Structure formats: structure tokens, C-alpha cells
């Protein structure tokens, strides 16, 4: 089983991003997804910067994939998409059907923001050239098992296994809204929130995280205890979503668990101190996403 680092979903300074990937070179991750998935206003990293990082990681033996923006609204969004799909040098993670259209005929990854809920849909994407798909996060292990019965030949399956869950996209920026700013003049407030802004209920329950135009779970989705289950189901890649702190330790913990160097409960314990909010794993078990299964609490 391989480990991937998902695209950085937050807005970090250019230097923070460069420093982050400087470290990634030495982490036991096999695949690295790069690029801006959430908001076209985030421009600390330019197209050329991403290609430079991609080349460095590629030279260090990582498989590099360029992720495309999930919500494409304007002509300039499409222009950026065409630069990505046309670069030819690296594989693309398509996060919109528009990106699938522009990737057709080349190998590409179906991102988690494309609604792949059944084998027929996956087969159509495979015909376009998809060689890997990232399961939508709300699918359960049971739905995955049924779907993989009809898996197209050569198709790899990736599961979002660690991080705040991407739950929704909007054209509205909720970070700007919190700061009473219009989206077009947002002062790039996302830079102040490197893992999103926690949204709590009126009785203090940590519930969601606002990340610009994206809404995430506040809880950290964590499937480190499910590695054996995932392996048996035929999952090829587990995705870790970058966070500002301790991502390297998280990758190492997953590596140790995958390589059977530690037991699942030891891995769970090792990871516990790096969780910056409550854990959850409900979606995997066919429950509401926010839930933490009893098995893991015991």
C-alpha cells in the first residue's frame, strides 16, 4: 500500500509551502499531489513555483500529480486548468468533469471532488484515461467493497485517510464573511488560518472548519486503525491531507502501520498526540461522518 500526500487545502505563504515540500523529500510518502484546489485568488505559489516543486520531488523519486481546482467559475479558472492539463510533464488529478474533458486520452487521477458513486461511473472515467480514483469521502467501506467488484482493470483506489474532511464548496468565501470583507477584497485572510477557522455550535461543540470557499469537518478523519481492512478491500493508496504541524510524523505513523512495524493500536496511540481536534471515522463505517466508531474509542 502506498501513501500519498494530498494537495495543501489551506492558504500558506509561499515560503511555508516551499519549506513544507523541502521536508517531504525525506518523508516515506510515495505520491505527492500539488497545486491549488480551493480558491483561484490564492496566488502565493505561481504556476512556475509549482512546477519547480514538482521537479524537485520527482527527482527525489516521488510520483507527482498536479491537482486541479474543484470549483471552476470563470474563464481565467479554465485558463489555469488548461495550463495544468496541457503541461504534459505531470499527471493530473481531475477535480471537475471539465478537467476530465481536457485530460481525456491521457492517464489521469479522478479526484475526490468528482462524484464517483458506482462502478458504471468509474468505468466511464476509466475509458477517458483514468488510472486511479480517489473515493468520495462520504462513501463507506461497504459501498467501496461493492463498487470494487466491478473495478476496471488497472484502476488504483485511493482513500482519504487522514485530515479534516473536505465537505463542501461554495462560491461564497466564509473566511472573508467572518471578517466582514467582500470576497473580491478578502485581504487574503486565509493566510491567518493555516488549518481553517473552527466553527463551533452555540454550546461549544467543535463542528466545522471554514477554509475560504471550502467547508471542512472540524474533526480529524483518521483511518489509521483501518489499514488492514483497507488492504483487504483492495485499497492501493492512503491519502494524508497536509496540516501545518506534524504532517511528517503522521506520514511516519501510517508508514509504520502499513509496513506492520507497529500494531494498529500502537499506531493509533502514536498518532493521538498529533490530533489537533477530535477524531472521526464515521463515513468509513457507514455512519454519519462526524462519528467516531465505538471500536476506536475502546
Amino acid at each position: 500500500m502506498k501513501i500519498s500526500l494530498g494537495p495543501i487545502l489551506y492558504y500558506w505563504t509561499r515560503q511555508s509551502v516551499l519549506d513544507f515540500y523541502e521536508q517531504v523529500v525525506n518523508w516515506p510518502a510515495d505520491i505527492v499531489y500539488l497545486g491549488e484546489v480551493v480558491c483561484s485568488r490564492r496566488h502565493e505559489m505561481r504556476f512556475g513555483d509549482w512546477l519547480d516543486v514538482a521537479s524537485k520531488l520527482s527527482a527525489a523519486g516521488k510520483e507527482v500529480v498536479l491537482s486541479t481546482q474543484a470549483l471552476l467559475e470563470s474563464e481565467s479558472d479554465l485558463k489555469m486548468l488548461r495550463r495544468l492539463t496541457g503541461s504534459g510533464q505531470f499527471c493530473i488529478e481531475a477535480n471537475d468533469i471539465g478537467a476530465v474533458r481536457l485530460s481525456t486520452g491521457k492517464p489521469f487521477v479522478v479526484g475526490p471532488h468528482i462524484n464517483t458513486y458506482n462502478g458504471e461511473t468509474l468505468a466511464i472515467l476509466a475509458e477517458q484515461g483514468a488510472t486511479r480514483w480517489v473515493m468520495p469521502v462520504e462513501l463507506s467501506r461497504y459501498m467501496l467493497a461493492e463498487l470494487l467488484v466491478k473495478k476496471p482493470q488497472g484502476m488504483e483506489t485511493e482513500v482519504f485517510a487522514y485530515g479534516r474532511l473536505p465537505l463542501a464548496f461554495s462560491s461564497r468565501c466564509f473566511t472573508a464573511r467572518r471578517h466582514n470583507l467582500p470576497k473580491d477584497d478578502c485581504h487574503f485572510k486565509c493566510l491567518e488560518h493555516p488549518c481553517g477557522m473552527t466553527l463551533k455550535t452555540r454550546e461549544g461543540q467543535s463542528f466545522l472548519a471554514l477554509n475560504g470557499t471550502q467547508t471542512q469537518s472540524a474533526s480529524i478523519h483518521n483511518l489509521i486503525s483501518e489499514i488492514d481492512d483497507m488492504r483487504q478491500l483492495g485499497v492501493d493508496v492512503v491519502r494524508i491531507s497536509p496540516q501545518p504541524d506534524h504532517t511528517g510524523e503522521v506520514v511516519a505513523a501510517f508508514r509504520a502501520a502499513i509496513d506492520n512495524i507497529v500494531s494498529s493500536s500502537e499506531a493509533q496511540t502514536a498518532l493521538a498526540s498529533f490530533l489537533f481536534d477530535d477524531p472521526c471515522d464515521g463515513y468509513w463505517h457507514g455512519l454519519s461522518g462526524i462519528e467516531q466508531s465505538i471500536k476506536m474509542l475502546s
Partner: protein
Amino acid sequence: MSLELVCPAGNLPALKAAVDNGADCVYMGFRNSTNARAFAGLNFDNETAKQGIRYAHDRSCKVLLALNTYPQTAESHIWKQAVDDAAELGIDALILADLGLMRYASRTYPDLRLHLSVQGSATNYEAINFYYEHFDIQRAVLPRVLSLAQVENVVKNTSVEIELFGFGGLCVMVEGRCILSSYATGESPNTAGVCSPAKAVRWQQTPNGLESRLNGVLLDKYSANENAGYPTLCKGRFEVEDEIYYALEEPTSLNTLELIPDMLRIGISAIKIEGRQRSPVYVEQVTRVWRAAIDAAKQDAAHYVAKEDWMTQLGKLSEGQQHTLGAYYRPWK
């Protein structure tokens, strides 16, 4: 130029109200999880669908069927059966979101017209043209996230007809790309055809006022003088960095009555009224106002104004008695 008025039919009385008050099309769903308004007591079985279709067709009104949830492997036969039933019933078009189901429908019934549902999340012409090239979709319903200028750019770059939401409940998220509901309750529009499902809602009177909860998660508290609307997850009040406010969206409705001349100008093919879960009276009143407004704009777009009387009537039918132009008006974002 044609600008069709597409009205919601949650049941037979609502369908008749829409037809009688000037809808060009009505849209409905079957009584199961194959559509995004899979609410108890709503929707059509084969017999009522047959009656509704006959009623509409006799009065030159088209009937569209929403099959816009995502089939899950073990039960995908239910969605295919729904396509078969719709074709048999003589539906004028299917409204689909799932790629696999589109292929099934387009191969099995090549003459059956297909529309891309808003749940298909197509916000750009590259995506819409993909669905056209592969499944010959004839119309796409756009998510409520684009500004009018962005909509215009989509229209210019595709031969597919474009349908816009004109009035009703406002999704603040991109439709088909929001799973907040399943995060809290296990059921989302994509998988179960419901958002913030009624069975997960609890109202509780407490010493501090009325509380609404969704599967235990506190969505809002209301003081005695506040109106409490249906507790949709994204329209609750939450706390972010010590401020309590409608962090995602106020309880408000979309109303684009004043944009009809713009929609005509940029070549929009249809306007959709949201609200299959609303009463026949709602459908009757909204349909009547929109029919009058569209006719007035078609007759003389240059002098068209959204009459105060129309706006007042729609205002009364809006969630929280508030309305907005939503994303069509850029500062909303």
C-alpha cells in the same frame, strides 16, 4: 425567444396548480431515494405520475422527471428501473446527475431527452460539453454559484440549453458537492436525496428558548420573538472566533425576478422554481407571479420592472420572508 418556466410538482395537487397557473414544464420525482427531494409523503408513484403526465400533456405542459441522486452499487437497479418507468410513462425529459445512469439512459432510450441536473455540479462549459459529447444532454441546470457575467460566458461556449434557478430555497454550496448533511446525519442529497432530513431534526423548548438540533448537533437557539424556520444545516447560527452569527447563510430565499430581462438577453432557456417540498398554494402563487413577469419581460424587456406587488407576494413565500439575488449578484460572495 423562449424562456421556459419550470415549476415544482411535489404531488398531484401541486402539479395541477403549476399547470393551471402557466408553467411551461413541471418537474417531479418518484417516491424513493432516486431524487433529491426524497421526503416522506412527497412525490409520485407510477399511477399518480400517469395521471399527472396526462393532466399536463392535455394542457400542453411538459413533464420532467428528476433522477438526480447517485446510484450506489448494490441498489443501482432501482435507478435503472426508474429510467425504464419514466420512458414507459412518456416523460418529456429526465434530469440526471450520475455519469453511469446517463450512459444507461442514453443507450437504452436514445430518443429520450436528457437534462443535466444541478446535482451534477457543472459550473463551466468544459464540463457541460463533456456531458453533451458523451450523452447528448440537451440542457444543463447550473448550480447557484455563478455571477450573471459568468453564466453569460457559459451560454456563449456551449450549444446545450442553460436553465437557471429563479426562485426558492437557496443552496449556498455547490449542489452535488455538499455533504454537510451526511457529515451530521449520515444522509446527503447525493446518497439519500435529502438534506438535513426531518427524521434527524429535534425541536426542544428549554429555559433559554427554543433549540433546533440535527442528529444532536445544535443548529440554533431562538428567543421568544424570533421566527424559527426549518433547521437546514447551513442556515444555523454558529460561533466562529467568539462571534455568533449565520456563519454560512441566513435563512433566506433566492429571488431573481428583476433579472428576467438579463436572462432573456443572454439566452437562458429556462427558469427553475425550487420547492417540490412546498404546498400547492405556494406553487400556485409563485407560478402565477413568474408567468406574469416572464410574459411582461418578453413583451417589452426594455420597460420591464419587477412590480412591487409581485415582489410582495414572493416575499411572503420566502424562507424567513427574506430574499437575495445570491451569487448572480457578485457582492453576495
